[in-house]
């Protein structure tokens, strides 16, 4: 469904993608794992045409997202939903209007139908009853779930989730994990999930991709990743501070760095 080919991207001296190639299959849940700042959100945005990479291509159903004109992108995006890392709710609109927004823009549904749809979507994320509140009145985890409700309100074929469970308690995380899996299993929604929650990733993924500072270090099923002999992958899934992956960005020796400055 989506094929990323030799993608390169840099912001100044920060590399967010270094010759990354990977494949996101149709009707599967693919989880993109990686450390903080490793370029996951950037990759996710580039996959939907929000920002263009320096080079490489992103094929979506055979068309290169990085080369599409705005009109064609907008057409494609009507079939996509995206949960942004910071939820990206419109702070001038209340929760009801936030979720109703895509419906009002792209459908001719009557107010009563819209109302019903919103009730259903809010129930799916466990938040019925907050319709009249403003985004600033909700907690981080709650806005995340409202963002999710908005992302799926048009019943998209492909949903991009940027850290859907960060900031949620274990029960709410479990509910969202189940929601992602249900949408995928029951409605065949192709799901691309950015996460750094290893446990949740193994629970929901059909396939995992591990990104580290712009480099793709592993790609495979949860089984394959679990049994991977690669020390980088092992370090990542066990969360060990010692290993081939450095914790800091610079190669400079810490003691030297402190003493010399």
């Amino acid at each position, binding site marked *: 469904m989506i094929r990323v080919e030799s993608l390169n991207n840099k912001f100044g001296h920060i590399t967010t993608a270094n010759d990354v190639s990977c494949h996101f299959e149709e009707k599967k849940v693919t989880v993109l794992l990686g450390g903080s700042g490793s370029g996951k959100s950037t990759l996710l*945005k580039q996959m*939907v045409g*929000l920002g263009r990479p320096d080079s490489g291509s992103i094929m979506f159903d055979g068309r290169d997202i990085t080369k599409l004109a*705005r009109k064609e992108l*907008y*057409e494609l*995006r*009507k079939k*996509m939903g*995206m949960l*942004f*890392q*910071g939820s*990206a*709710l*419109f*702070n001038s609109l209340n929760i009801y209007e936030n979720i109703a*927004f*895509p419906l009002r*823009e*792209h459908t001719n549904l009557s107010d009563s139908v819209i109302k019903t749809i919103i009730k259903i979507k809010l129930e799916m994320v466990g938040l019925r009853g907050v319709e009249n509140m403003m985004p600033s009145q909700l907690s981080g985890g709650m806005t995340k779930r409202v963002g999710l409700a908005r992302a799926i309100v048009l019943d998209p074929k492909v949903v991009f989730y940027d850290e859907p469970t960060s900031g949620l308690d274990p029960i709410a995380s479990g509910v969202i994990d189940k929601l992602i899996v249900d949408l995928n299993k029951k409605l065949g929604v192709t799901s691309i999930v950015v996460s750094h929650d290893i446990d949740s990733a193994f629970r929901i993924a059909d396939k995992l991709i591990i990104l580290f500072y712009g480099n793709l270090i592993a790609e495979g099923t949860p089984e394959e990743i679990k049994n991977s002999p690669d020390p980088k992958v092992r370090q990542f899934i066990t969360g060990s501070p010692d290993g081939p992956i450095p914790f800091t960005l610079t190669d400079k020796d810490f003691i030297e760095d402190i003493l010399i400055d």
Partner: protein
Amino acid sequence: MEAIAALGRGTLGTVQILGRSALFILYVLYSAFIPPYRFSKVIKEIEFIGAKSFLIILVTSLFTGMVLALQGYYTLSKFGAEGVLGSAVALSIIRELGPVLCALMVTGRAGSAITAEIGIMKITDQVPALEMMAVEPIKFIISPKVIAALISLPILTAFFDLVGIFGGFLVGVLMLGVNEGSFFGEMIRATEFADIYGGLIKSLAFGFLISWIACFIGYNAKATTEGVSSATTNAVVVTSLSILVIDYVITSVLL
């Protein structure tokens, strides 16, 4: 050599920004004419830019008119010409102070807020979210603001003129004892349609300028908190200076 190169770079940079901002505003205006029309957004923006500025304009205009009458009376009485005070106050306000002060006050109150609002929408991914929902952000966020400013500024300016003249009347006639008949008589005799028309042209130009600069700077702010705060300051400075320069240009063309 270095200095000349730097100057060249600076000039090129400025020309580039001017070019980009021109393309930006053309696109904003073009989008405004393409359906779907966002009337309710325009009304909301008129409320923000226009209606919410009324109080601040009321105070500014009242005191401007009052101080004009005070100063004018002092000067005119030296020539024994207190009788023309009414026309002096009215002409200064309608031709010059109304449009300019009104625009400067709106810049401080609404222009800065527009830049900050758009900048914050960028930081919090609301702009990409619109694009993701296949809604053109410029058409959705910016065009209504520019239209609203074009509608609001002339109305605010007319209100400024009215209250300012009333302030002049308060001080000139009620306090300093200028004859009421000559105050208004001179005013009506001296004020021509061209004066009012000139004031209207200015207020339209300033409304355009305020929304253009505030939106352009906000939309191009770096998506960081420092980026937005410096964009807000820049917007106010650039808009205020532009208003004064454009005011001179329009005045010299119209005279």
